[in-house]
């Protein structure tokens, strides 16, 4: 069963090939094929999971990819608990979202191509998590970047979509340069890029090199996972169709950075500096995302910043090393369920509301969309960590582990994580209140294309996946946490989970303090947005904090100042040099040789043509002469 695990990748890859090369001929059944391939992969993954023992990592060598003397890059897969966990998440949630897309994209003329891109994404993502070397990982890493680019820019007519797609790809590329450098460094220091060889040899390197590799990997992770300072692309990525946001920009691709750090655990275990920086990035980003999430009125952007923030939690967890790898993955899984569900719910709302995303135009929708409301509500409760739902188990475990860090770190990281939980309670409650409760503000409004709003529940092909994900949002945390099931399952991949001797706050107090803070945030949101009517127009007279949050805490301005502007000036300088310096010098030289530039211009083509002809003739003469000498 394991020996044929390449089938996992082959199904969706074949689907993508057929749908993209087959063209219009496959329009009629393309969406069904797209779903079938992912379901097939999911079925195969479940069968593998049930029938095989995963206690040890199995490397499946497929073929020799780049064999050059010392650099032997094998194309192989690694089947172990970590990769199988991801495979199940990707194909499981992926299959649900594929099915949902049949309904969501029903009116889109390019639906077949859409499924082709989604299949391409799933295949690349599986290569990313299954590859048994950093180069194979990189292949998948860039492949999902390509799929993400194509899908964010799906609505090609919108300039904003095209710009967002480009921004996503380029900011990712910044991170990729880091990842690539890390891989080159591994080869030049260890002589291999396969997990087995790198993890075996990493201990012999100097601490400085290990730290350098760890930091370069972190740069790659920040790009892919929307972590500070490379977070600004993720909210813009919401230009893509909502199923894309759910699958790629919430449940799977953006968590690849967390996967990378967890996968590279043997490297991070050796560098305290590396781990600390991961933790700092995570803690900072989780607050940043949560704060900005409070300021947006666009339902998808709030969810996007929520994703940034939640991935911050995961990064914080894996940055804690053996104290947190498994916890980060657990939150990644539960988040995969509830955030995908929330996005599909948001998509369902948009579907019923003429693709409107401004929550100020929503209100009172719970009556019109009961199933969407119920599933969305469960996802919401799971996300804010309501007791005994998914998020409660996974987030709380991270907060406890953060408080377990030594000295000031325990207070800072634990405090940040707990504060983040409070803010999460606020912005998510705000979102739910503005969308599903209060006055039906859409009654007096029209959508951008001049139609009236007639909110309605979505068809079963969309609601059934939402219901399945809602069940996951409720039960997954309990299921994973029960008897440390997931932690023990992952131990062969990331090592056994260590627990701190003592925490900065008393152990028993932390969960309830977290829940209390979260509910307090919700209460504040209710006081502001629940008791009073929400104005349709966005208030302009707001506090500096709100204004800063509305401007993404100036993340884009920072990028502009640090990267774009210097880049622009360098470009201008190079062009100036090319025109005036290099070309000028050459022309000047030519002019000097020819007497004057006017005369150079008068060397008209006729002259050169005859010259070229004579050269041709001369060459023939030489050849002829040689022949004669030879044969005489």
């Amino acid at each position, binding site marked *: 069963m394991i020996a044929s695990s390449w089938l996992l990748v082959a199904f969706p890859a074949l689907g993508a090939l057929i749908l993209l090369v087959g*063209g219009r001929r496959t329009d009629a059944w393309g969406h069904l094929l797209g779903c079938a391939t992912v379901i097939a992969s999911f079925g195969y993954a479940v069968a593998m999971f049930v029938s095989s023992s995963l206690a040890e990592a199995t490397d499946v060598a497929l073929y020799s990819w780049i064999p050059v*003397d010392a650099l032997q890059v094998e194309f192989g897969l690694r089947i172990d608990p970590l990769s199988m966990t991801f495979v199940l998440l990707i194909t499981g949630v992926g299959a649900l979202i594929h099915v949902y897309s049949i309904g969501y994209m029903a009116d889109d003329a390019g639906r077949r191509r859409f499924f082709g891109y989604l299949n391409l994404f799933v295949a690349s993502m599986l290569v990313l998590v299954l590859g048994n070397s950093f180069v194979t990982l990189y292949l998948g890493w860039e492949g999902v970047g390509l799929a993400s680019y194509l899908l964010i820019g799906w609505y090609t*007519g919108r300039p904003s979509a095209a710009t967002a*797609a480009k921004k996503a790809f*380029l900011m990712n590329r910044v991170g990729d340069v880091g990842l690539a450098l890390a891989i080159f460094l591994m080869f030049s220091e260890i002589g291999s890029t396969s997990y087995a060889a790198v993890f075996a040899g990493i201990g012999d390197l100097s601490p400085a090199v290990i730290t350098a590799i760890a930091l370069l990997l972190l740069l790659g992770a920040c790009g892919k996972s929307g972590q500070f300072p490379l977070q600004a692309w993720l909210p813009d990525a919401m230009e893509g169709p909502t199923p894309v946001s759910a699958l790629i920009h919430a449940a799977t691709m953006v968590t690849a950075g967390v996967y990378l750090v967890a996968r590279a655990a043997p490297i991070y275990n050796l560098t305290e500096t590396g781990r600390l920086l991961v933790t700092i990035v995570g803690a900072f980003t989780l607050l940043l995302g949560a704060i900005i999430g409070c300021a947006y009125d666009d339902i998808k952007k709030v969810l996007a910043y929520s994703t940034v923030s939640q991935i911050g939690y995961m990064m914080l967890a894996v940055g804690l090393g053996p104290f947190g790898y498994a916890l980060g993955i657990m939150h990644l899984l539960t988040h995969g369920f509830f955030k995908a569900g929330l996005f599909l719910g948001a998509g369902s709302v948009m579907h019923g509301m003429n693709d409107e995303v401004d929550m100020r135009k929503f209100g009172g929708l719970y009556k019109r969309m009961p199933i969407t409301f119920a599933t969305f509500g469960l996802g919401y409760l799971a996300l804010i960590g309501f007791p005994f739902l998914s998020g409660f188990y996974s987030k709380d475990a991270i907060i406890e582990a953060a408080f377990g860090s030594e000295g000031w770190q325990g207070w800072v990281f634990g405090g940040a994580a707990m504060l983040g939980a409070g803010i999460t309670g606020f912005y998510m409650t705000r979102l739910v209140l503005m969308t599903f409760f209060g006055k039906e503000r859409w009654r007096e409004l029209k959508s951008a294309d001049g139609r009236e709003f007639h909110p309605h529940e979505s068809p079963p092909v969309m609601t059934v996946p939402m219901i399945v994900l809602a069940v996951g949002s409720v039960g997954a945390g309990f299921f994973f946490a029960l008897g440390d099931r997931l932690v023990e399952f992952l131990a062969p991949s990331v090592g056994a989970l260590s627990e701190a001797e003592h925490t900065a706050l008393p152990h028993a107090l932390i969960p309830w303090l977290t829940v209390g803070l979260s509910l307090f945030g919700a209460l504040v949101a209710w006081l502001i947005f629940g008791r009073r009517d929400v104005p349709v127009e966005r208030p302009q007279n707001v506090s500096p904090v709100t204004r800063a949050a509305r401007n993404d805490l100036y993340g884009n301005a920072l990028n502009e100042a640090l990267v774009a502007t210097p880049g622009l000036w360098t470009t201008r300088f190079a062009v100036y040099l*090319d025109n005036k310096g290099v070309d000028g010098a050459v022309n000047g030289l030519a002019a000097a040789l020819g007497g004057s530039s006017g005369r150079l211009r008068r060397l008209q083509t006729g002259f050169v043509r005859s010259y070229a002809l004579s050269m041709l003739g001369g060459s023939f003469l030489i050849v002829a002469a040689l022949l004669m000498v030879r044969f005489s």
Partner: protein
Amino acid sequence: MLTLVIFLPVVVAAVLLAVPRAGDRTVRWAWIATSAVEVALVTAMWVTYSPAPDGYAFEQHHRWIPSVGAGYHVGADGLSLPLLALTAVLFLACAVYSVRRTRRMRAFAALFLFLETVCLGVFTALDLLLFFVFFDLSIVGMYFVIAGWGHRGAARAALMFFLYTFLGSLVLLLGFLGLYLLSSPHSFDIVELARQDPAAGRGAVAGLVLLALVLGLAIKTPTVPVHTWLPPAHVEAPAAGSAILAGILLKMGTYGFVRIVLPVLPGTWRAYAPVIVVVGVVSVLYGALVAMAQRDFKRMIAYTSVNHMGYIVLAFGAAALVAASEEQARQLAITGAVTQMVSHGLITGALFLLAGVLHDRGGTYDLGSYGGLARQLPAFAGLTALAVFASLGLPGFSGFVAEFQIFTGSLSGAPVATAVALLGVLLTAVLLLRAYQRIFLGPSRTVVTGDLTVSETLAIGPLMALSVAIGLFPRFLLDVIEPAARGVL
């Protein structure tokens, strides 16, 4: 066998010109058939290729003028065979692309067949004089292609191209003469010269010879600062001419390095390697930065060639910098450089043909005049997207395999330069995606009709398919290049 492969096209060209009544239709099919036969012959060479240890296959050697040690000496090894294959494939693609659109078909076809012989000749010549004759004739052929079938400013661009590269080849000839004089017994034979190591212990003289060779080849490659002939030549050349110019003719420069300069002057090359590394890195960054500012699609691709060829120069330099102990890194860098030649030929060849399609439909290369073409011409947009992502080094395409080897191989010899050059990968992504967005995404500005025709798809599609094949299964290529790369430096 090899002589047949080299001269078949020019013979057909002569026949085409000699038969006065040959109609366009006959010419067209004769051209395509000859190019296809060439592909078949080179494939047959590839399949039967089994070089003597440390030597050449298909070798033919006729001593013409023993007194000066010059002769007709051709042969193929792992460095030349991939380029022969690239030449055959790209000329076939150009033939298929050009069949439906060209004025004065007979002359055009004859010129391209002539060019094909010349290019195959350069990549098989094992004698400096022979190499030089072919090298020079390529300039003549391309001059007539640009001047005769180019756009409005073709005359001036062709003139600039001719003067520039002709000057380069004169300097190169000086270098060859220098090599001849240094060797003892005097010889123009590349194999003999590589065996002799004629520059050993010659100090400054060897440095001068190297300077002449490097300058001559660098103009052809081209590297900064002798690249300025390239953009105007490309902008004015017809699409097929651009594809051959970028795909094949530029490779003559880098092939000259790996065939002649590195094996014949290894010691001198090592001594000046830091300079070469700097030239390479500057070409990478400078080419990308200037490309970023272009509003003309074709000019932009031309500058990305400066960028991509810069990686090759960097690899050659860094390979010389690694200590003698690090055989592996050196071999990796050189194998990567040769792979990059093939990869760049395929991808940039495809991009220039696609630029030709764009000009054909919209009448201009100006990026600002387009928008939203993805909805009007989906197949064209799709194929261009493939070429764009291949060009920016996405894994799964040939460019990644090549650049990956170059970077891993160069890192230990020139760590800082490699890290800086890696920024070039970032910059090419910026500029290519920006150009793609301007042409294909956003609102439409003009009504453009006519998606890819069959002949265009048949010409460009296989180039991209080959790039993907090399990206995913490069073994067939690397197994040929690697043994030959071993003896280069």
